[in-house]
Structure formats: C-alpha cells, structure tokens
C-alpha cells in the first residue's frame, strides 16, 4: 500500500478513533443502565466545548499543574504513535523501533506528572487520588512487564512491532491478553477498580486527581485518557487476537478491520462489565489485581518452558 495512504490512515486513526471508542463505551454503558445515553460522538462535542471555556486554576497551583496536562498529552500522543494498538501492518515505516519497556515507562511518566499535579493544588482529594493511583500502578506495572516480557521471549525481541508481527503461542496469548484486560481496567480507572462516573470524590481515584482541572486543561487530560484507553485495550485486543493462529496470515486490510472491530468489542465488554460489576472495596483491589499477576506469571512460565 502507498506509504502516504498508510500514514494518513494511521494519523486519522490516532486522532479520531480514541474519542470514538470512549463514546462507544459510554453509549453501551448507558444502554446497560436502560438509558438512551449521549450520542457516540459526544466526547468530540465535550472536547470542543471544554476548549472554548475559561480555565480556572487554583491559587495554590504552580507550573507543575499548568504543564502537567500539556506534557501528559504529548507523552500520550507519542506513546500512541509508538504502540501498535491497531495492529502492526498499518504502522508506517517512519515509526521508530518501540521497546515495550520504553512504552511502560512513558506511561509511567504521564502518571507521575498527573499525580504531582493532583497534589499541587493542596486539595485533600488530589492527594488521596494520587496516593491510590500510585498504589494501583505499583500493583499493575510488574504484571504488565512480566506479561509482555513473556510475549517478547516468544518473539525473541523486545520491540513491540516485532512481537505483534509474529505468531504467538495461543496459550501465552490468552493468558497475557486476559492479564492485560484486567490491568487495563485498573490503569484506565474503570470498574471494578475505580468508578469514573461516581458523584462522591472520596471513592474516586483518577477523577479525584483531576478534580481541579477545567476548560482547556481538562480537555487535554480527557484526550490523553482516551489515548491511553486505546493503547491499553488495543494491546489487550491484539494479544487476544494472536491466540487465533491464523490471524497473522490474514490479508492486511482484513487484519486492520478485525483489529478495529475487536478494539470496539473490547470497549463494549468493558462497558458491560461496568454495568454488571459493583465497585470493589479499596482494600480488595490488590486481590482483584492478583488475578492479572497470576495470569502473567503463568504466561511467563509457559514462555520460559517453550523457548
């Protein structure tokens, strides 16, 4: 396919699809609750509205608060460029080699900035959210690293593009894919770890951190969250697709279609899960994330035995 065309599709995908996915998740969630729900394009309307509103910043806030969303969004964009969340074949060849550890640490950089910004305003909610976010990422990051390392061991490379271009052992793919789904629920502040739509700040994690943001700052954060949603769900979807041995042999356009469809399906699954699960007690979160850790460890064991 033409290199320019690929780049075009890639960039459109990058700029439009994340918000679309968030819209779909919200719509399905509304349907689950017997509501009609906002249109799927609502996140776009929200974003353009936020960009046109006055931004209010706390008097206690410093440059950390101001620059955190800018750098955070830039980091999320770069990470989204690097990660083959919609499959590897449509990745243009100007995208540099992507080490999975670089991706995990780039995501950590974004979280580090968000947590600092949360504390910056001197609000108790910010500190509470940051503290919980730090705890959750402490529980999730080892799982992510071990799980993807198990895939990397099978592919013989730490480059994400190489990992996802090669066939995988189906068992490892299923285990790591499921671990990534559970990890994604925690990292994206979704039910049952965190409730993104609650009205009580004390029960929130991510929303408590960004409580002080408004207008443009909030718009950038919302977009970064949408990108992160795509990155995590996309990685999980790609890994699960690799459990189907014929997947890597399919024609290019077909694979792209399946990737996008599976990403949407996974988003819908997350929405359904939000509809039927209750939020876990904060103290039970480690037990829930232990499932992901165990699946990752099993995958690592199988990968280590199969090499």
């Amino acid at each position, binding site marked *: 396919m033409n290199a320019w065309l690929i780049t075009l599709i890639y960039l459109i995908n990058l700029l439009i699809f994340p918000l679309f996915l968030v819209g779909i998740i919200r719509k399905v969630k509304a349907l689950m609750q017997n509501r009609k729900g906002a249109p799927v394009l609502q996140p776009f309307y929200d974003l353009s509205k936020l*960009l*046109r509103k*006055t*931004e*209010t*910043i*706390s*008097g*206690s806030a*410093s440059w*950390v608060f101001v620059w955190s969303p*800018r*750098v955070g*969004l*830039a*980091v999320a964009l*770069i990470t989204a460029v690097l990660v083959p969340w919609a499959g590897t074949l449509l990745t243009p060849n100007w995208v*540099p*080699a992507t*080490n999975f550890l*670089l991706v*995990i*640490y*780039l995501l*950590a*950089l974004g*979280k*580090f900035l968000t*947590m*600092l910004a949360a*504390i*910056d*305003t*001197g*609000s*108790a909610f910010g*500190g*509470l959210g940051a*503290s*919980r976010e*730090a*705890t959750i*990422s*402490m*529980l999730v990051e*080892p*799982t*992510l*690293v*071990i799980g993807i*390392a*198990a895939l*990397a061991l099978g592919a013989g490379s*730490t480059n994400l593009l190489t990992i996802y271009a090669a066939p995988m052992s189906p068992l490892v793919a299923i285990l790591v894919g499921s671990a990534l789904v559970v990890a994604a629920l925690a990292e994206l502040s979704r039910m049952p770890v965190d409730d993104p739509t609650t009205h009580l700040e004390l029960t929130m994690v991510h929303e408590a951190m960004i409580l*002080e943001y408004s207008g443009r700052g909030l718009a950038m954060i919302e977009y970064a969250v949408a990108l992160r949603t795509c990155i995590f769900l996309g990685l999980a979807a790609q890994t699960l697709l690799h459990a189907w041995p014929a997947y890597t042999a399919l024609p290019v356009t077909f694979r792209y279609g399946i990737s996008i469809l599976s990403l949407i399906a996974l988003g819908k699954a997350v929405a359904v899960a939000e509809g039927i699960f209750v939020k876990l007690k904060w103290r039970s979160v*480690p037990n829930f994330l232990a499932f992901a850790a165990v699946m990752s460890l099993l995958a*690592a*064991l199988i*990968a*280590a035995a199969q090499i």
Partner: protein
Amino acid sequence: MSVSEFMGGSGIWCGAAVLLWLAVAVAGLLKRKYSGSALSVLTIIGCAFLLLAAIFGRNCSLAFPLPWYLGDSRFSFVIDPLSRWFLAIIGVVGIPVALFSPGYLRHMRQRISLGFVWAALALLLATMVGVILAANAIVFLVAWEVMAASSFALVIADHEQRDIRRAAFIYLGATRTGSAFLMAGFLWAHQLTGSWSFSEWSLSGVSALGPALLIFVGLATKAGSWPFHLWLPIAHPAAPAPVSAIMSGVMIKTAIYAMARFFVVGGSFSVPAIGPIILILGAISAFWGVIFALLQHDLKRLLAYHSVENIGIIMMGLGISLLGKRYHVPLLAQLGLAAALFHTLNHAIFKSLLFLGAGAVDTRTHLRNVEKLGGLIHRMPWTAGAFVVGSAAICALPPLNGFASEWMLYQGFFAFAQHGHSVGTRMGALLLMGWLALIGALAIACFVKAVGVVFLGNPRSQQAEHATEAGRGMVIAQMLLAFMCIGLGLAAPLILSPLGKIAAQMGSPSLLRRTWTIPIGLLALLLIVTVGVLAIWMRQLSRSLPVRRFITWECGFGDLGPRTQYTAASFAQPISRIFGAIYGYALEVTVKGRHRRHFPETVTAETMHEAHLETKIYVPILKSIHRMSGNFLMRLQAGSVHQYLIYMALVLALLLWIGVGR
C-alpha cells in the same frame, strides 16, 4: 613502568588533583573558621583535573621506586578504563558539591568549624581517588581506612547534637566491621597467592570462596547492601548535605568499584557462588530500600534509603554480569556490567542532586521533617525544579538518565531470559524484570510523596511559609546536576563507548553498541515539539479566554487550611499496609469526645513500624557483645599494671614459642 610514563598518561592529572586536595586539607586545618570560597575553587579545580584524567587520559600504571614501600609492597597505582569511569564519577559529583558547600556551610558556621569540614572533605576526595587507583591490597587498605576516617570526621562535624554523635558512632562501628572483613579477606588471598598485587591474584575454585566471601561482606557493608545497610540510613542524614551527597553519590560506590574490580572485570576471583549472591542481595536491597524509604518522614533519611535501593539495582547488574561470565554469554556479562556502571554514574548524579536539594531546603527552613514543609515550589522555584528533575531521574522516567541505565538492566534481564539454560533461570530472569518494575513503581510512589509534600501544595509551617530561594552557588550546583540528568539521558548512546571499553576488559570485544535500540534523541525532540505545539495552541486560546485564578475547591466548607492537605504518612499508607507484614505496620486512630462519632473533640492517628532486621537480629547481637565486654573483657582491663605486665609476658612467651616451633 616508570614514573615519567605514568605522568605522561592520566597520572599527572590525578596526582595534581590529589596534591591540590591535600593542600586544601592543610589550609582548612590551619584556618578553622574559614568559610571557604578559595577552598571551594581549589577543590573544583582538582575535580576538573580528575575529569581530564578520566576523559582524555590513557591507561597506565605506576609503581614507586625503592624507598617508597608500604610494608612489603610498593606504592603502586593503575589507571584503566574501569578506574577512569570512577574517577569521572568523583569529578562529576565533586564539582557541584564544592560549588554548593560554601553557601550551605555558612548556615552552620556557629556550630561547626568550617575549615575542618573542608579539610575532611578534601581528604575524602583524595582518598577515594587512592582507593580507585590502588593496584595492590596494602595501598587500597590504607586509602580505604583514611577514607573511612575522613568520612567519619564529616559525619560527626555537627557533634553538639546527640543524634549525630550516635549516628557517627554507629557509622564508625559499621566501617570497622567492614574493614575487618576486608582485611581478613585480603590476608587470606595473600596467603593463597603470596602477593599483595591485585593483578597477580587469580583465585578460583573452592579455596577462593573463603577470601572472596570475606571481601564481599566487607565491600557490601561499605556499599550499604542488605543486610549490611543498617548504618547507611542513620549516618547519611546526620552528615551535612554536601557530605551526604558525596557519601551517597560517590563514597559507597568505591565498594561497587572494588566489587567490579575483584569479581567481574579484573578476574581476581572467579568464584561461581558470588554471582547469585550479589544478584539476590541486590534484589532484596533494592526492594528493602524503597519500601523503607516510603515510610520515612525525614527527607534526607528517605534519600538515604533510596541509596540502599539503588545500590541494590547496581548489584543486580553486577550479579547478572557474573552469571553471564559463568555461562559464557558475553552479551549478558557486558550488558549487566554496563548497566551497573552506568547506573552507578547516574545514581551519583541524581542522588547528589536530591541531597543538595534537601540541603537547600534545610538551610532555608531548618526543617527536614517533610510533614512540616509544603508549597516551597513558589518560594524556592529553582531548587524545586531541579528536585523534580532529580526525582523523575531516580524514578527512571524517560528521557532522563535513570531510565537509560535501568533500561539497560532490563535488557540484561531479557538477555538472561533468552540465554538461560533451564526453565528455572529463564523464569527467574522474567521475574527479575517484574521485580525491577515493582521497585520502579514504588520509587515513583515515594518521590511523588517527597516532591508533593515538600514542594507542592501549601506550606504546613511558619518556616516553610517564609522560606526564600537558596543562594546563587547552591542553585547553580543543583541546576548543573539537573542538566547532567537530562544530558546523560539523551547522550546514553555515546556513553556506550567508554562502557564498551570497560566491558572489553572482560576479554571479549564489546557488543554493547547494538544493544541500544531506543532513538532517545528523536523521542525527546518529538516530545519537545509536541509540548511546544500544544503550549502555543493553548496560549492562542487563552488570548480570548484568560485563565482565572481561584481557590482550591473546598466542598463549600470554607477556607482550606494547610492541615487539610494529604500528609506524607497518609500518602504512603495504602502501600505500607500492603507490605505491612514486613515491618509490622500499624495504624492507630483514636477519637475522643462525648459524641465521638459526629462531634469528636480530638482525633489522633499514629502509624508505627518496626525494622525487624534491626530489632530482631542486630540489637541482640550488639547486646550480647556489650554484655560480653561488660562481664568478661572489662575484667581483663582492670587498670592494674601488674596484670598488664603478666599479659605482656604471656604474649611474649607465646610468640617465642611460635617462633621457636617453626
């Protein structure tokens, strides 16, 4: 090799640096009240000489001619890529520390004698150079001992405080114990080889295990590795901040240098058991350091625990390097060593930056308890900015230097997983990757806490409220280190060539160059451009809709006081609870008042933890030693001259008997 050849190589610069520092030491001792701008400049020039030797110098060695003998070995020194690397570390940290010190020491001038601090500091720098250049065990030990003594003098500089005297005493005990192990190991190695020269030691097999273990314990004590780290979080916070920076940044690294020299690069000992031991102790240290750091409320103590963590990370690198040597996988051996050495440099830079930041806060607020600080980013903007960069670097966030070296360590683990001989080792290597990720995430939690509570939010005390920016020299020193954090992160591919030279000392040509696969410069550029575009766009938008400043949302209850902010203890609570079993974490909340539930009069919350290693193992051992000396040894030293004469006669008889028996 002759003196002139040595001088032609890097030797002249090292020699000049050492002489300069000895002059500083003499000057400092002569002028006790001198605050030291001139001494600072001289120290910086010495560090610059050292950097010249490290970067442009050649490999050389030197043995002094006949009259210069120490016992039965010569004064001999050697400069090779490995020692040049560590000379660079001394120089790189020495310059900002010397820049920072005059401003910092000024606020302590009533309590301590400044000339004395400069003298001890210069002596410490000079003896560290001695340790790194030493080519035989005797020179090494002499330099090592003077290094320990001068650092002890620095720890106890502020000796009017009881805590500091206690800390210095514990430090002295730890260094004595470490040196005793080291000496025993050296003597044993001398016994086996008949030589004091490191280059002539090539011990392997079962007989080498004894001296290797003794030397390792001695070095691990100095490095502050678990379970010998006990002294580190006590002694480092007690010293003045620039000294903490030198101790944490450089001095404990001399032990890492010696480990690399004896076990990894030099091949003095090829003992298979040492590799797994270093790896496992490193893994435990890294975790142990960071979970205890989370609990600390004293900023410098928190940083000291992070030194335990980072020494652990460095040792993990050395450990897999040794395993690579053992299984004949050059890639693994080189990656492990390179990651360890690179992290040594990086840790030296960001840890000294953070200690200097803590020192700057200390001079302006006279507080080290983080729970009393807050909001300093508005009052000390430069210090805060540098501290944020240092924190991001120690958390291994890209594109800073900590990320580059930890990434190399991850690559090392991955190579270990690929080349492991059994399922167990491969699985173990993957687990180590997860372990490092866990440690990294905990470090992020800890530094979000440290930065958040100290610099962000609102001030929690009068002192923090009235703080002002530190002096110019102090700020420049911190900025210098912060730029180094960024620069080394971006220049990581260039660093691979000196690291490759060290790796080549292990015998096979360097494979490092092709292991670096991250286009870090491109990514940094991309990041800057994207942030720039976003910033310009946002500025464009804010033309029509300016930003409004308002209070932080207080739920409609009225003004938020500083006490409503999250504290360091509450920030760390969720993680501390998860790992609570390790240190007996407990949180006790008491609510008092008649209608306790809705209208409490007083609410107190108290957290407790206990370091089991200290209370269950070290304290009983120390107590029994104390008891023994009280009950038994005290009687031997009764102060009676007759008794002492009997001892002398007995010892003389014993020696005669041994001598005749031979």
